């Protein structure tokens, strides 16, 4: 038939190779897969970000003395109480959840995370995280970009820049966020890195990527794209070969592919009931953290390099000033899905080379201005995070805080160290992953950062 044999898609590869020098094209594609600096333990990252500041002393940093010394007055030069009326005196506050040891490793976790705790032997827990700022905005920006004030490229953009993507029909860096978190789009921006590395934000729901759904039938669209290709070919044929024109022609074909690839990613109908149950996801539902976690697995399965899941937005999050009991609601939202994700990845043999990171912007104060205050304040001095899979050492607990969880006591891990370690697991040397901008070679870790060797296999 005329339409399929002469003008159909089959002609495209030939047409394209005519239009562009294949080598020029390869180097022009910023998302072409790139070799790491050294052999990588992880090929992809799923970054779980708990917005608002998860209390370390109520979750993963067990402080028995905080239970017994409740009400004791402490004197601290703490950023959150300085010049704050009503905070002239502060007292230790008791954690509201009990702790248990889990697995062979005996990792300690509170009853807030009963399901994640069952994965203890796959987790490398870091209890000595610390950060530079006790404001949500700055600390969130810092955890994502290594910069606590200025806009800089996000961790995901750096990884995409360093390694490219293994699926050209999907973005290399995806952020699934039901709401914008602190610092807005800056947390997934590419900033001065080429725009191809910026995170594509997906909002859980039936239409997760903007403009993904054609408003004409697929066959009409195909014919229209063929007409477009003819226009563009005629345009190109009267001009010397120009890679940017060829890349533009290619981009429509890729987008056409994305229209199928993207809905396929988010079509969970072929996932079994058991898988749905594992993630705590009701069949047909397109919201909740279970949906986000299963979508993340399906994205990395298809070669997406970096997927970030943000659990809540800049309000209604872990920022439990008013009442720590709100942590229960937030933990319930994520606990089962996260455990499901770890177990599912493991069952599929993907956990080996998929790095799962769980973190937040800062911890919460072990004290408050009364011993029976219901909430806790922001605490940048110490918090907990963990890594699993992708070369993270299973079952290790690293670093410690003092008897009340106030300050890091041993093996402190700053945000820059955390970033350096994540890049290292991806086969990237954080001191060599640089980009020249405004006369300076920038890197994610600025001039800081040490790889935390002891949490690596």
């Amino acid at each position, binding site marked *: 038939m005329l339409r399929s044999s002469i003008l159909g898609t089959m002609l495209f590869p030939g047409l394209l190779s005519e239009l562009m020098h294949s080598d020029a094209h390869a180097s022009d594609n910023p998302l072409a897969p790139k070799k790491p600096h050294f052999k990588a333990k992880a090929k992809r990252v799923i970054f779980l970000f708990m917005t608002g500041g998860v209390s370390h002393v109520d979750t993963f940093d067990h402080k028995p003395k905080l239970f017994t010394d409740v009400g004791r007055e402490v004197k601290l030069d703490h950023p959150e109480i300085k010049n704050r009326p009503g905070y002239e005196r502060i007292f230790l506050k008791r954690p509201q959840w009990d702790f248990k040891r889990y697995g062979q490793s005996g990792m300690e976790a509170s009853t807030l995370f009963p399901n994640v705790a069952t994965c203890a032997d796959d987790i490398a827990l870091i209890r000595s995280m610390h950060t530079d700022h006790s*404001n*949500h905005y700055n600390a969130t920006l810092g955890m994502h970009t290594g910069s606590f004030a*200025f806009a800089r490229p996000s961790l995901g953009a750096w990884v995409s820049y360093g390694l490219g993507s293994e699926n050209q029909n999907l973005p290399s860096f995806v952020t699934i966020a039901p709401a914008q978190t602190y610092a807005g789009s800056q947390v997934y921006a590419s900033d001065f890195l080429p725009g191809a590395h910026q995170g594509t934000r997906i909002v859980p729901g039936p239409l997760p990527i903007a403009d993904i759904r054609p408003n004409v039938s697929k066959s009409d669209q195909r014919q*229209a794209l063929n007409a477009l290709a003819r226009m*563009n070919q005629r345009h190109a044929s009267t001009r010397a070969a120009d890679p940017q024109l060829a890349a533009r022609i290619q*981009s429509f074909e890729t987008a056409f592919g994305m229209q199928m690839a993207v809905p396929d990613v988010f079509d969970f109908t072929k996932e079994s009931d058991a898988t749905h149950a594992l993630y705590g996801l009701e069949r047909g539902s397109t919201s909740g953290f279970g949906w986000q976690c299963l979508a993340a697995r399906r994205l990395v399965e298809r070669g997406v390099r970096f997927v970030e899941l943000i659990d809540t937005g800049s309000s209604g999050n872990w920022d439990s000033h008013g009442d720590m009991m709100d942590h229960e609601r937030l933990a319930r939202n994520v606990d089962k899905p996260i455990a499901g994700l770890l177990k599912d990845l493991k069952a599929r043999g993907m956990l080996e080379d998929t790095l799962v990171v769980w973190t937040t912007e800062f911890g919460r104060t072990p004290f408050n201005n009364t011993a029976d205050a219901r909430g806790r304040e922001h605490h940048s001095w110490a918090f907990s995070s963990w890594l699993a899979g992708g070369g993270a050492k299973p079952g290790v607990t690293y670093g410690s805080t003092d008897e009340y969880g106030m300050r890091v006591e041993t093996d402190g891990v700053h945000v820059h160290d955390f970033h350096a370690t994540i890049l290292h697991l991806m086969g990237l040397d954080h001191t060599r992953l640089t980009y020249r901008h405004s*006369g300076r070679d920038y890197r994610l870790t600025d001039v800081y950062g040490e790889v935390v060797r002891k949490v690596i296999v």
Partner: protein
Amino acid sequence: MQKTHPLVAGILPALLLTAAAAAPQGIPARIDVSTFEAKIRPVLIRECIPCHGASQQKGGLRLDIEPQTSDIKRIKAALTPGNAIQMPPSGALNANVKTDILGWLDSGAPWPKANASKSVASDPKHHWAFLPPKRPSVPNVGKSPSVNPIDAFINQRLASTKTNASGKADRLTLIRRATYDLTGLPPTPQEVDAFLADKRPGAWERVVDRLLKSPHYGEKWGRLWLDIVHYADTAGENSDHPLPHMWKYRNWVIDALNRNLPYNMFLQHQLAGDLMAEQLTGDAARDSRIATGFLAGARRFGHDIDADMHLTYEDVIDTTSKATLGLSLACARCHDHKFDPIPQRDYYALYGIFQSTRFAYPGCEPFQQPKFLVPLTSATEQAARATELQQLERQVAMQAGVPRPKDMEQLGTARVPDSGSANIATPSGKPIEVALSAGDVLLFEIHPNGNHGADTTRLELTIHGMDTGKPAAWRITDIVDTLPGDAPWNGPWMFLDLAAGLRTLGERLTDINGKSSLRGWRSGETPSVFGNTAQTAVDVWTSLPGRNIYVHPGPKGPVGISWTAPTGGSFAVSGVVADAHPGGDGVTWSIHKITPGMKLLATLKDASVRARALETRIAQLRAQRSLDVAFACAEGTGADARVQLKGDPAVPGAVVERGVPSFLGLPGGKVTTGSGRLELAKWITSRQNPLTARVWVNRIWQGHFGTGIVATPNDFGLRGAQPTNQPLLDWLATTFMDNGWDTKRLHKLLMSSDAYQRKSGSGERAAALAAFPRRRLTAEELRDTYLKVSGVLDPEPGAAHPFPPEHTWAFTQHTPFADEYDSSKRSVYVMQKRNRRTPFFALFDGPDPNTSTAIRDNTTVPTQALWLMNSAFVQSTGDVIAKRTTSGTGDIDKWMTSLYRTLLGRHPSAAERADYYLLEYQLYDGKSGTTPRAWNAYVKALLVSNEVLYVD
């Protein structure tokens, strides 16, 4: 930048350059070490070291260190006419310079001993960009003397690499290129026709002149400057407060370019316009103050922005130095600059200047309201306005009330304790019955029990007509949906302030605490009567259930609601008075009968109407007062800054005198009083400053040719790119200054060159300007093109954005400002936030509103294609055009012509017509109605085709 640039590539082969310029005249003067620095070293740096320095040693020769004896002969040979290798490749040295160099070589090339092995190129003081540009002679490339000097410089390079330049582009290409380049919009079919038909000499010049006069010129090139200064309509701190007056600066930039304000003055006004305004009057003074929005619009940081002002000053120093000098001084915040010779004290000298400047305050989470906005009217005008306001306010007060009638009959009263409620009833709990004649008035009063905590009170009130045969009931909640109405009365109900006599509530409220469902009336803060029109509760100072009426007494006096009986008869009054905001003193209600009451109320209504008229004028005057301000700068308290050790403001070091940077070694006025911004502005725009003019002509060059002569427009420092043609850059910079910093004349000069008018190309040919670099439309051009070709574009300049009123602001990092505003104006007028970029502009490589954008990215990603294929914006653009092209006859040839002329200014070819028919054939599915479907698809395809998306 990894490509070998033509200058370097041209050195190894024997060169075509035959004739050297004039031969050295006279016997070379002997040159010794003392004159080396003055005469020799600058020439070596400018002409030789780019290829024969530390980074490359073409031909094994190195001239940044003392040359070997054997090299001296080679250098001499290269300077001798007729030799196979001629140096430098940019053209023969000027005769005097050549004499000096030969003299130096003949003296044995003496080199300063102390640092004989120290590379001169590594001495940053000798970096090319830090030496003042000298006007080079225009190379003679054997053409007629009328050749555009730009072409002389470029053609010489092309000749040296044996590159043939492409021919001249056709007229359609040229007018499309020029119209996009100067206005950011496509030419209209009529403009194309006119140019094609203009056979008189000077047709091109007339097109360029017309476009330079277009008001759209400033909208295109103003955007370039707004990119560099990272303009935004929000402050960028944690809750991203709106900047409702910032647009005046944006429009000032556009207007300044349109009226071709000389570039040196353009900079001076932005740095010190408030100080310059003291010598100006009227609009000139006003504009000059607005211009300092350049500084005031710097980004704010953190929660309490005052605590992070050191970061804002860093942003100001970074932006100012990048924008004007093409250098970042911000690196010197923590230590002396690593690469450029910028000492830390220069950073703090500037810091002192900006710290001595008062920046307008945008508001932030703990302090929501803006302050230090700069008044744009004179002190006399402000005083006159204040006087008029006072008089009007006094008149309003006099208009207001009537004395409290002495003969009111009290029908009932009860006390409502804190958090409690009380029925409106007799002491025995029955409805209060009363006989009324038509026009009698019932007055309900709510008194505060104490002088604080007189609080929000929910009121249920029902008046039943008791006469048989005419059952009727008036409920206060019936009026919820009609609040606030035009006047403080509503049917039989009227809202009163009872603090002294009776007066109506004066101020109409449509959104209390920013909640649109809370509406009503008040006098001052209290007393007030308002309703929650929503179905559900609204959380403000307390939770207010929906569909209810609330009253709030003043601290010292009651609030009242009157009801006028429409007919005579007996009535029963019942209801509930409930404290809606626990934690105060509670209230007391009472009911009174006024006989006769109607006349009294009529008097009140008259007074109210008169007062409202006055209040309209008062509101106007107040609005003018708040609108006629700019987000700009004024002088603060002049004080020097201390060094912040390692950039930490908590660790102060030595005091640094505020003033201009020292690193260029230029004289600059010492700052004794004031901030020193005027001194800084003069220093930056001094003719002696080696950077300012070069940086600007380079930006204009980049705007036309895609890449600057220096490919790093914000970095002319040691780490920046070398100029690909420094003589050309210096010729342009010196010519620009000689012409009075005239930017439009510079555009014209560039556009009149052959280089600008060539056929388009890409890659190395475009980089060498053998072909004109093809480019994609920018994000703004793309959106504006679609608006224009579909006839939707509103071409008038934009003004203020519809931000929520300042008194309602309660932005936090949890609920930051996050509005988006639709607009059919040009993209430069679309509201841009710092913390949440508008997705479309981010998708098509728009500017980063958080940091200076000197070069737009040029990405080609599939998500752009998704937008082009499926977005509602492109769909509706296509629909409008498809509809418009088919209006009239059903002749497809006519549709095609109309479509191609609208989008591309040309006629369709036979092949393109055939293409359309092919598409229609392919879409044919045996049903009727294929043509509209096919036409729609074809229009949309052409709309996103490369011929539309790229400028040749």
